[in-house]
């Protein structure tokens, strides 16, 4: 429901809905503390981030002009965002021409109710069902859908909405299956179950699979191949009988109406091919202007993400393909705070993100804290800048996120679409300070508030004199931190300084697990 006439009011676009899971979460340092004391998580995370980081470096090194690709990726996304309205209208036209139905959702709630209704319709739920739903008891036995890993549907907590309507949503990506069966939350964009080791996974499969379908085979060991085989068998019956699938999309091509999903396991292809109805929830920032732009992104994304020259499977589909795959095709275009991010000239960059997770894998804070500490489906450096913008900085978790960084700059260097995350973090920190003061902060208050969390203890560490020197140089200028030209030359030097030894970093972290001092 529209609240006020937009044409006259200089009001801002609404932020997205903070879904119930994350609403009451404490600040980042509180959330990080237990994760830091979890040795399995820390070991797995470190192994994962370093392995993927090395693979990425190798395949990126193979490309003659990686920098030119990055520049072109940023160009394409900027072009899409600068005229986002036109590109979305073009996308919509081309989707409709190809037989798809396009829906628009202002926020999470609207997106969920659109999807729930579409699912009910396709599964033949009684017409009145959605009205009765609020009353609780119904006679409809419910139904099921299969799902391809999608950040957008996690963001809007679609599974919970479906469940409330009596519809089981089966995650089919192996890692998502582990997370779902373990009643858990994802901790990494790319490998969401990275916080679980093989024996934990075996236990989860053994205990949970039988409750929701084909049980794990007797005598299954914790050999990864056996665990994968158990997942194959468990999910196969679900794929073969599924009538509705729900996906996201990595890219939506405006000039052709094509949606693109990259994956590894084949679960995506199963969902995108076998059911009769396909519903894709696509953030409005996923649009790229032209088909040719995929020539760049299909190089950038696999190499940045899994560190492969190419991921095993990619499906590209344009509406409903006659006699091939789902014939009832729906696309839900989702705002949920994205138009708010679009308002900010600097913050807008975050909408270029192609969710490759390269910035997570190079981040020293993520590597130690893990994904859960970020209190959002978007963890790591990109989460620290995207979440507070999407949801605003009103809740404790969201206002602490811009501080979850050492500003080392590694995320920018890794980012395939050149998002200047460090600069945005500094900007967001000053916004949080403003909010507390209820006005424009003194330059020093902004700087010192930011410094209190990041640098306050950091500079006590042995061997981090470079960081401390940079900090004092940075704040010694007595200017608002957000106005500093970036990267400041002093800071550039600090980025090349050796990172602090792991043990002392950890002890630093432990000492800081209480609330940031004000």
């Amino acid at each position: 429901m529209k609240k006020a006439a937009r044409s006259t009011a200089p009001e801002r676009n609404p932020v997205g809905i903070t879904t119930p899971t994350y609403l009451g979460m404490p600040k980042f340092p509180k959330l990080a503390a237990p994760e830091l004391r979890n040795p399995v998580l820390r070991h797995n995370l470190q192994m994962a981030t370093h392995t993927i980081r090395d693979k990425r470096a190798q395949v990126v090194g193979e490309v003659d002009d990686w920098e030119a690709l990055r520049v072109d990726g940023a160009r394409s996304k900027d072009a899409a965002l600068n005229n986002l309205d036109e590109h979305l209208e073009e996308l919509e036209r081309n989707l409709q021409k190809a037989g798809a139905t396009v829906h628009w959702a202002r926020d999470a709630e609207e997106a969920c109710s659109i999807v729930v209704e579409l699912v009910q319709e396709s599964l033949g739920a009684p017409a009145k069902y959605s009205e009765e739903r609020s009353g609780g008891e119904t006679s409809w036995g419910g139904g099921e859908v299969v799902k391809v890993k999608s950040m957008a549907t996690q963001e809007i907590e679609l599974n919970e909405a479906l469940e409330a309507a009596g519809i089981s949503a089966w995650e089919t990506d192996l890692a998502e299956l582990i997370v779902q069966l373990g009643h858990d939350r994802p901790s990494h964009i790319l490998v969401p179950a990275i916080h679980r080791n093989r024996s934990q996974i075996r236990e989860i499969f053994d205990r949970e699979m039988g409750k929701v379908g084909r049980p794990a085979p007797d005598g299954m060991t914790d050999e990864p191949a056996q665990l994968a085989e158990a997942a194959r068998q468990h999910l196969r019956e679900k794929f073969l009988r599924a009538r509705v699938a729900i996906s996201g999309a990595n890219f939506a091509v405006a000039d052709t109406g094509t949606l693109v999903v990259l994956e590894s396991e084949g679960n995506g292809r199963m969902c995108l091919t076998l059911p009769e109805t396909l519903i894709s929830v696509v953030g409005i920032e996923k649009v790229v202007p032209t088909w040719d732009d995929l020539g760049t992104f299909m190089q950038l994304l696999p190499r940045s993400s899994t560190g492969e020259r190419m991921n095993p499977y990619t499906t590209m589909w344009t509406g409903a393909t006659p006699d091939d795959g789902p014939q009832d095709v729906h696309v839900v275009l989702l705002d949920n705070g994205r138009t708010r991010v679009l308002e900010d000239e600097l913050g807008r960059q975050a909408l270029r993100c192609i969710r490759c997770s390269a910035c997570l894998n190079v981040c020293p804070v993520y590597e130690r804290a893990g994904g859960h500490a970020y209190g959002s489906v978007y963890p790591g450096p990109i989460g620290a800048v995207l979440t507070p913008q999407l949801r605003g900085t009103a809740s404790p978790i969201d206002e602490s996120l811009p501080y979850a960084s050492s500003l080392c700059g590694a995320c920018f260097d890794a980012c395939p679409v050149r998002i200047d995350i460090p600069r945005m973090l500094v900007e967001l920190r000053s916004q949080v300070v403003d909010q507390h003061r209820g006005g424009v902060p003194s330059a020093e208050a902004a700087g010192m508030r930011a410094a209190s969390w990041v640098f306050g203890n950091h500079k006590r560490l042995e061997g981090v004199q470079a960081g401390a020197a940079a900090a004092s140089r940075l704040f010694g200028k007595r200017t608002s931190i957000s106005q500093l030209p970036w990267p400041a030359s002093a800071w550039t030097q600090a980025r090349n300084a050796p990172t602090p030894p792991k043990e002392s970093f950890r002890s630093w972290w432990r000492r800081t697990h209480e609330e940031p001092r004000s």
Partner: protein
Amino acid sequence: MSTAREEILGRIRHALDGSGARTADTAAGPVGMTGAPTPGSTAHDAMVERFVEVTADYRAVVQRCGPEQLAAHVAAALQAYGAGRVVIPPGLEQDWLSASEAEFVIDDDVSTEGLDRCDAVVTAASVGIAETGTIVLDHTADQGRRALTLVPDVHVCVIRESQVTPDVPGAIRLLRPAIEAHRALTWISGPSATSDIELNRIEGVHGPRHLHVIVVAG
């Protein structure tokens, strides 16, 4: 009451109009496109060799052969996997199958369960990408609808050397007509795989666990 569509478009205009963002799209120059070498040249052969190497890197089986050996290679591949019942797309060249003893089922809207009872599928391809070891299917008559190459556990894929192109942007250009005709595309780089358990790579989760590529001269 305005619709969600109007309201979102309105929000976008509100965010962008007058902000200096409204620059026209700058034309994309394809980045990393090298241009395909002439078929038959040494450069072309080197590119095909690169395609073979990179595809094999994904633990796919890759063979090169002349047109006269193709039927024997297809037969040997199917036998190696013990494939007795093999589904084929309706437009597949029947000559390719002439040396095989397997039972061939021509796809005529075979049910998913029916496909699940097939051991293997044999198809042609649309484009091969040397730099990434990728095969692209555009699902025309000699490749069949998408489910064919998804449900059976073995995919034997025949690609002609002339279909191999050096790089991704080149492939994207070649595929535009298929996309404009609203065909679906499947990009395949090795067999199905996961690294979700402690980052161990495991071949074969839901898609075909075996990818067997035969690159035929011409």
